[in-house]
């Protein structure tokens, strides 16, 4: 137990230290190797950490031996460990997949590219593990700045504009978060989450506290791409290099959701958060808006990556809908979908990345009849799509089952209807791609396309297999999600 407490900070430290080293490494092979090895190590450590907290324990590590309320503390329970496992796991699978694609998309100065990637991941992991609210802000800025740089690496010139727009929105979000944190500091004089959680209830409820909560929730909602604050996301995902699209889609919004939940449930009490502001109603409206607008816009898109990006907006809606129910079952469903959606989107973006690489375009009209030329890639896409729609036996089905159960337990049958309608919309946009890729004939003047090498297909199929595995064996996902939800609620009363 104690040894894992000592090792746990290295989940963040390894990529953080490896990043600057990576920037100095020459050539292509070394930076990639260092990145992959660091993420694989972090993955092993995350798995060990989750195993250690799976029984409800909390690990605490004080940096530099400064005692927690003053020094920076890493505080890990099932909720953080679950998210950290998702980030490191997806990154470890995607990096072997992304190497030749990065070679094609970022031919020059790969050392700095991988350095940025490591720092972005270190930032995301730092947000996840830290127990200090100011540290959250710092890591948020670290990961965001690195991400802007990564998106700007996209081959398309529009990537620059997408990165700039994300920069503006991301800065607005981070500033909102900082304003909220500042309010909290003024009110309580502490920045440690656990300390805040004990001091806030005894602090006299004030307008300032409400405003702090509002700023924090809205600031994080931007990073979460919650409708209608999602405008930065489609372009960023579409024009970023394929590896970055896949990684961001699987991890970045998940981390934002986790922090938001940490603030709502742990720093503030749920009893306070949901009564001081109409959070439940606001989150539900935005979630439903996201589910419908996202799915509907996804149906309209002519670019595969952009379609998947809008689908992410819709899927974020599902997670937030679970949160807005303010029940333990709803929170479990949100955590479950957080993990499962990471798996399915990683698989979808990974196969879309292979199409972009071999075919040179992800416009749907250029993908006509490509299923016969790249059968393994497109079959992986279709199977991951089955998971996205939520057909058994896939992880997506498990998510849908828990979300619908949560809505029904709460007596909100109309939500079930809306969930079902949006799943139908997901069926439409996935089936559209399948139809174009498999059923339409390849135009005669289309360039010949070759299937990707099997070494690249293995990671994609690993992700697809994970979608099916976690659709059948739900001990890790459902167990982890319910542990995470219980860790956040921590025996407090839900309003």
């Amino acid at each position, binding site marked *: 137990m104690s040894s894992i407490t000592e090792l746990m900070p290295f989940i963040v430290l390894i990529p953080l230290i490896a990043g600057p080293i990576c920037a100095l490494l020459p050539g292509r092979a070394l930076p990639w190797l260092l990145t992959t090895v660091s993420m694989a190590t972090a993955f092993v450590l995350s798995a060990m950490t989750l195993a250690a907290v799976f029984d409800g324990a909390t690990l605490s590590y004080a940096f530099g031996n400064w005692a927690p309320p003053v020094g920076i503390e890493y505080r890990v329970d099932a909720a953080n460990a679950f998210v950290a496992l998702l980030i490191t796991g997806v990154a470890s699978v995607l990096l072997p997949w992304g190497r030749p694609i990065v070679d094609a998309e970022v031919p020059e100065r790969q050392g700095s590219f991988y350095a940025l990637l490591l720092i972005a991941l270190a930032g995301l992991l730092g947000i996840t593990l830290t127990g200090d609210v100011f540290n959250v802000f710092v890591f948020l800025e670290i990961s965001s700045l690195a991400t802007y740089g990564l998106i700007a690496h996209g081959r398309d010139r529009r990537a620059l504009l997408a990165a700039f727009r994300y920069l*503006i929105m991301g800065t607005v979000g981070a500033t909102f978060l900082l304003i909220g944190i500042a309010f909290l500091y003024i009110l309580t004089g502490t920045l440690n989450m656990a300390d805040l959680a004990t001091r806030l209830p005894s602090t006299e409820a004030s307008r300032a506290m409400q405003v702090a909560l509002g700023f924090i929730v809205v600031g994080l909602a931007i990073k979460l791409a919650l409708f209608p604050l999602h405008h930065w996301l489609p372009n960023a995902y579409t024009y970023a290099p394929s590896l970055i699209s896949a990684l961001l889609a699987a991890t970045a919004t998940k981390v934002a959701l986790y922090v938001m939940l940490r603030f709502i449930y742990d720093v503030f009490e749920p009893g306070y958060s949901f009564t001081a502001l109409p959070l439940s109603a606001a989150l539900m409206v935005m979630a439903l808006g996201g589910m419908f607008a996202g799915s509907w816009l996804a149906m309209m898109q002519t670019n595969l990556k952009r379609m998947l990006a809008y689908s992410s907006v819709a899927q974020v809606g599902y997670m937030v809908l679970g949160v807005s129910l303010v029940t333990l079952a709803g929170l479990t469903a949100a955590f479950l979908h957080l993990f499962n959606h990471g798996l399915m989107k990683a698989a979808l973006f990974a196969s879309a990345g292979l199409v972009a690489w071999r075919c040179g375009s992800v416009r749907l009209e250029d993908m006509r009849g490509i299923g016969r030329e790249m059968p393994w890639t497109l079959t992986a896409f279709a199977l991951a799509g089955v998971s996205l729609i939520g057909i058994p036996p896939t992880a997506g089905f498990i998510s849908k*089952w828990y979300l619908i159960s949560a809505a029904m337990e709460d007596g909100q049958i109309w939500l079930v209807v809306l969930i079902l309608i949006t799943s139908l919309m997901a069926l*439409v946009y996935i089936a559209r791609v399948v139809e174009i890729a498999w059923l339409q004939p390849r135009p005669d003047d289309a360039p010949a396309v070759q299937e990707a090498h099997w070494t690249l297909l293995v990671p994609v199929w690993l992700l697809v297999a994970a979608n099916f595995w976690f659709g059948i064996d739900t001990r890790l996902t459902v167990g982890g999600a319910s542990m995470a939800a219980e860790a956040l609620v921590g025996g407090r009363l839900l309003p």
Partner: protein
Amino acid sequence: MAEWLHPALLLMLGALPLGVLQGRSRQVWQLALPLLVLLLVVALPDGARVTLHFAGVELTPLRADGLSLVFAYIFALILFIGNIFALQVDDGAQHVAATLYAASGLGAVLAGDLITLYVFWEIMMISSVWLIWRRRRQSAYDAGFRYLIIHALGGMLLLAGIIAYWLHTGSLAFEPLQGGGPAFWLILVAFLINAAAPPLHAWLPDAYPEATVTGTVFLSAFTTKTAVYVLARGFPGTELLVWLGVLMTLYGVTYAFLVNDIRRLLAYHIVSQVGYMVAGVGLGSALAISGTAAHAFTHILYKALLLMGAGAVLQMTGRSRLTELGGLYRSMPITFLLYMVGGLSISAFPLFSGFVSKTMIIEAAAVEGRAVVFLLMTLAGVGTFMSTTLKLPWYTFMGRDAGLRPPEAPLNMRVAMGIAALLCFVIGILPGWLYAILPYPVDYNAYTASHLIKEMELLLFTGLAFFLLLGVLGGKDKLSLDLDWFYRVPGRQAVLALRNWIVTADGTVRGAFMRVFRQAEDATTHLRLSGWPLRSWPTGSMALWTAIVLATLLVFGLGR
């Protein structure tokens, strides 16, 4: 041993090699696999059960009892016959889809809990749509897409119903559902979509005629019959189903008069025949449920036979419209004769299989004193004879010679039709075989004098009317053909009104169904062309939205 090797699982694993194997080895495997599964199913003892404890719930992936075994036998059998029919088709995807489809049907009827049922239900949807799409025509793609969406909707209703049932009762076992409550209605509607009950039937005549020649044979067997099974399992004795079933029998028959495409005509007769079964489920007595199972058994055989005959005509001539066909008996005599066996079976002609099963359901209605149900079902039987056994073959094989001289259908197709025809005939003369495997022991004799006289009178007079009118009416005016015939029946006003109402209602429902799709498609195209959904939002508006969200949250929060 047999209990642990789940037939559906074996079939699913066995489907995979079909995508890789070529030529002779593929054909051998195509025949060996269904036989293997048939043996496995026959070896299943009545009362076999496999229970798994899984993630905190108890699943029963295998439950073999009287009701599920009848369906399992016929599903394995029809896969064998259908595979013979499809032997010459060189399309791996289609064979894999058909086998997976059969496996999911088999899995669904053997499922003892709702989760397993739902899993197979969804696999059934996904595999069957490929049988439509592999026709490789734009109209088939579109029809397949509509089929997919309707069934996905049904699947989602089923899922919602299962969850509601689970939260309500804490059990997932698939047993008769008690009346009322959201779970009851959600699951019932989901089942009725697959049973093609009006007004949820539009997908069937829309999609089945668009499927591949061999695909339609499989389609006609599994989806609707699985729905009949789950209705019989979950909703026996539901009064609503009696009337819905009667409506279906008349609906299908009436509309079948009006269509020109031979496979669409037969598709409407699926609706009609499934109506008998749905009504049988609604009656709910032991005789009615047994009759339903028996009718599902015989129906799968003769409907497959009919669709194989129609498919053979389509395959050899490339045409499927009544108005473009005619006189084919000269060049396709065997197909014609075998088709007629199917036609006589569906019309419940004595000595053929339909007679021994359909009369059971009608008898069950009579025993319970349901005079109206009895009469309306008998009336629908007349219509069936009229269009399937007289009109379709007359305009396809006899009648005006369209000048077509196609060769006879390939040997494997004739063999498949021959086996199905033989079974129709054997069941017709030796019904004891069929009665022995029914869910409830029945003491029923189809060959009583009263049954024989009633059926023969009906059929002979129908035939007489048809041929009397034939000379007067000619080929094209099919609408007045049935109309004039009805004039000779007492109570014609009621019948006419019903018929018109059904035709209008069907037209409205189908029209609305198609219109919604077309409007959605138009709107989508329009929007996509306008580029509105594709545009990027200016940064300023993104910031504005942020401000709006924050302001709204605070106004509502602080204002309280």
